[in-house]
């Protein structure tokens, strides 16, 4: 299964923002490999969460681990069958470990969209 995590400039810490994270970490649990990809939505004028969600879906992710997520992006993930989990720790690799141990909770509350303006 493929897991996506929005990450900071340092490529290690989880980014607080989903839509405008500079990078996404895509981890494949079958091959146990990770890729770091530039988030095409980071500089988007508006609807960044949506563009980032499109990117994550296209990357083949089955799950997303994030600190927070907007309602719009959440709607995309629901339609695409991607499960969203709440990040537990600061570092991406620690979250992956927690996920493998079944310690992560699903994210159930989403913030309202910034209406194409953020």
């Amino acid at each position: 299964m493929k897991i996506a995590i929005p990450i900071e400039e340092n490529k290690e810490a989880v980014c607080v923002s989903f839509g405008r994270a500079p990078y996404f970490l895509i981890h494949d649990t079958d091959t146990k490999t990770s890729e770091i990809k530039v988030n095409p939505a980071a500089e988007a004028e508006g609807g960044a969460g949506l563009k980032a969600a499109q990117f994550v879906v296209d990357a083949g992710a089955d799950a997303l681990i994030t600190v927070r997520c907007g309602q719009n992006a959440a709607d995309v993930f629901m339609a695409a069958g991607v499960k969203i989990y709440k990040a537990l720790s600061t570092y991406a690799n620690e979250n992956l470990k927690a996920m493998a141990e079944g310690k992560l909770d699903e994210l159930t509350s989403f913030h309202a969209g910034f209406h194409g303006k953020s």
Partner: protein
Amino acid sequence: MRKLLILSGKGGTGKTTAAAAFIRFAEARAFADCDVDAPNLHLVEKNLGEPECFDYLGSHKAVVDPEKCVNCGSCQAVCRFDAIGADEKSHFLNEFACEGCGVCAAVCPQGAISLRDDVAGEVRLYLGERVFATAELKMGRGNSGKLVAEVKSALLKNAPAADLAIIDGSPGIGCPVIASMSGVDLVLIVAEPSVSGISDLERILKTAAVFRTKAVVCVNKWDTSPEKTEAIERFCAENEIAYAGRIPYDAEASNAINAGKSVADIDCAASRALREVFDRVTGQLTGSTQ
């Protein structure tokens, strides 16, 4: 960092006056002016040094190359924003109406239309012991919500250690207001005791509810209508909306502002009442982080 946003619904109720006072009371080291259409906080927050200024790129704007244009009018026919005009030589764009959708560029048979970056305003960041982020939107521009988001993000990035950030918002209920609400811990609504003020209060509260933002209300210039003030207080009680108190109309407040000072810099009825409101609001803020 806890974030307090000050809104009003109706214009002219005293948001900026309250914000300026709170900044003093809290000795806040991080504050922002998100009323990007008509910013005023910088007029009472002085001695901050020179700001760093950044161009704010809004959406794109379409531009017609008159050399390539053959005046066929295909662009005008598809533009939904009435943004295209024409003279004998060529068609041209109205930069104020253009929303940068790109439809005209897509249909132009001559490839005469391109989309360019549009400098829609300027972000000004004052850095030092106190961090102040403000901006001004170029006239006629939309995308004010995105500029608001940039002001907030500039503040958060440059003052991460600050305990409390105070954000002066804009009137209305539209995009700059909605953008300013995201991620704040509490919204203080400065209400005016009048028919208009009450109607606008209800609309801004509805808007805050749509975005699940916690709100607290205070009444400014309460003695211009004690009757309407009581109506607002009853409304808050009936709807379980937190209420932070009332501030009297005070000519001294206006005099202070005109002299470029915060109301909190002088001792008068308004500043004393604002202090009490501030104490109740900070009480709400600490409550909300539990």
